[in-house]
């Protein structure tokens, strides 16, 4: 009898799990339970900024689900899990039976506990419905918007509203912006950049009340000041959705605790993505990394294990990249580097540009990094991936460490010369090549052989080498290699 898989949550963790299960088990029965239609939360800011149509955000359609042989139950929440009986109860009253269950329930924005936080024109910007509500308030005009919370998600949205000309102010209770992504030095450079572009930044103050004044929203601060706007966006953080797991006797901490196979404390029940607290690659300790790349990796590894292919996950890497109104900011791994390390961090600062780079060391290994600089700064943009590669492989740089400490801008030579690519090429997450994702999102039937041939040919139009070319040449005589 085919295994019955139930996936709760239609975000990237759930979808990648389903694709992975299907790729490994053509017989499996798969059911997705999701309260929202599946879409990509990551791209909502581009929708808000008017750069993409609403249709671009969706990640599934009937043809896609049919090809994946997945029964989709949307507009429905799972209300209880009975692990012993292998059943999930649904809000619609029915229930669904499982042999393997994935909790990919995501996370939810935290609502500040202050008067007025539930009022009109006070929004989270987390769901597609939030985005639509906000676009309705903005109505194509240059509105004044007050942000409560200056974290990653707040800035993703702020950037989108800046693109459409809104007048923006940010309130952050901590002493700096982006406290979970940048250190104080980088944050102060980012703050200067924002202020230079007319965005008001208020740190170290709390919003104590959201009221109304002459048709405006009025955010009263602990400092006594009041900020007025047409709209208030709340972005003080997100919290893993663990209630379903906790109520079912599954072990939770901050998130749903999972092992190196993404299995929870209950056999055959897995968790992935924002709701899961799994191994952190840098520390080995359980951590919630509520970011898209972790959701994808979790989903793939959980899916492989659910489909009966034991697959161990080394852990997720904390990382973020953010465009702050034209200033690129990124951080990776153990970026905090509080000065207690035996090897001091390597830092380059150019405040006038502004440019900031910090590499945090453990002996001859780079274990964390912060990069900040204008988006036009190709040096910064070029180095993002290599820094991630160095931290991910956790490999010592040996004699190359000295040069990189002296000049942290010279990441590329150290990366290549230390043989880092070789440490990456022989590893894949699931121990085999990634299939072409022919199933994902599109509504075209997969071509024989599976590639998205028509779509690729339509978008990739390459003229064969435009410059003067000498044509293929004979290999030169081998030079003598020592």
């Amino acid at each position, binding site marked *: 009898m085919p295994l019955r898989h139930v996936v709760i949550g239609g975000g*990237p963790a759930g979808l990648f799990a389903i694709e992975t299960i299907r790729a490994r088990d053509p017989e499996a029965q798969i059911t997705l339970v999701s309260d929202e239609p599946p879409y*990509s939360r990551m*791209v909502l800011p*581009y929708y808000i900024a008017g*750069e993409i149509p609403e249709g671009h955000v969706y*990640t599934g359609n009937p043809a896609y689900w049919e090809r994946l042989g997945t029964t989709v139950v949307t507009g429905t929440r799972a209300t209880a899990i009975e692990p012993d009986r292998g059943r999930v109860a649904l809000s619609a009253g029915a229930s669904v039976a499982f042999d393997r269950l994935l909790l990919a329930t995501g996370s939810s924005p935290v609502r500040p506990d202050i008067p007025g936080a539930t009022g009109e024109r006070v929004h989270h910007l987390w769901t597609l419905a939030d985005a639509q509500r906000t676009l309705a308030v903005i109505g194509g005009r240059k509105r004044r918007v007050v942000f409560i919370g200056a974290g990653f998600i707040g800035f993703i949205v702020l950037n989108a509203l800046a693109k459409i000309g809104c007048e923006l102010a940010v309130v952050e209770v901590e002493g700096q912006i982006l406290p979970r992504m940048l250190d104080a030095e980088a944050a102060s450079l980012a703050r200067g950049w924002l202020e230079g572009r007319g965005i008001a930044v208020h740190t170290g103050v709390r919003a104590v009340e959201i009221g109304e004044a002459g048709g405006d929203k009025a955010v009263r601060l602990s400092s006594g000041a009041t900020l007025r706007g047409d709209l208030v966006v709340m972005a003080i953080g997100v919290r893993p959705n663990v209630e379903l797991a906790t109520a079912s006797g599954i072990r939770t901490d901050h998130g749903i605790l999972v092992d190196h196979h993404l299995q929870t404390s209950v056999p055959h029940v897995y968790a992935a993505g924002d709701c899961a607290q799994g191994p952190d690659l840098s520390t080995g300790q359980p951590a919630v990394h509520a970011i*898209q*790349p972790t959701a*994808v990796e979790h989903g*793939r590894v959980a899916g492989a294990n659910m489909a009966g292919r034991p697959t161990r996950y080394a852990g997720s890497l904390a990382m973020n*990249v953010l*465009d702050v109104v034209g200033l690129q900011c*990124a951080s*990776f791994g153990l970026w905090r580097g509080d000065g207690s390390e035996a090897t001091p961090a390597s830092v380059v600062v150019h405040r006038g540009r502004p440019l900031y780079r910090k590499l945090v060391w453990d002996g001859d290994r780079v274990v964390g990094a912060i990069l900040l600089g204008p*988006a036009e700064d*190709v040096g910064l*943009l*070029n180095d*993002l*991936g290599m*820094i*991630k*590669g160095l931290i*991910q492989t956790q490999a010592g740089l*040996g*004699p*190359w460490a000295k040069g990189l400490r002296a000049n942290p801008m010279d990441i*590329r*030579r150290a990366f*290549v*010369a230390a*043989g*880092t*690519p*070789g440490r*990456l*090429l022989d590893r*894949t997450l699931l121990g*085999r*090549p990634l299939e072409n*994702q022919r199933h*994902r999102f599109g509504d075209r039937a997969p*071509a024989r*052989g599976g*590639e998205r041939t028509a779509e*690729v040919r339509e*978008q*990739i139009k390459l003229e*064969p*080498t*435009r*410059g003067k*070319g*000498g*044509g*293929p*040449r*004979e290999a*030169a005589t081998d*030079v003598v290699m020592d």
Partner: protein
Amino acid sequence: MAHRSLRIVPDRCTGCMQCELACSWVQTGSFQPSRSVIRVHVFDEQASYAPYTCFQCHEAWCMSACPVNAIAIHPDTGAKVVLPETCVGCSLCAIACPFGTIFWDPATHKAFKCHLCGGDPACAKACPTAAILYEELAAPDWVEPWAAKLTERLAAAAGASDAA
């Protein structure tokens, strides 16, 4: 079907940078080495030069990190290619790729990477010393043997200067 890959022979590279010029011409229609997706790493102290670009790796970190499925495998070459009309420019691929071979373009606000020029790589054609070849490869890692020797030479040089 086995696809051809770029095989780089660093010991043949003289650091002339013609590959970077040719690549940026294909990528952008202008000569901007900083927008080339093949980069020559210069080790003048050891008279060694290493062109480096996407390995078209099996894991395809960029492809699975993309939230809108804007990276696909080209049916003719097997190259992982960015579909520019689908890409929203979120940069997730650029932080997910541990090889550092996919980039966000400040001019277009889209990702860009090596697409093997549709099966006729300009870098390989431009290279005057055949340090960049396009052929079927059993193992894609051309870096390791070269890097190991370079590292040995660096360590030996450091040892010699310590002894002096």
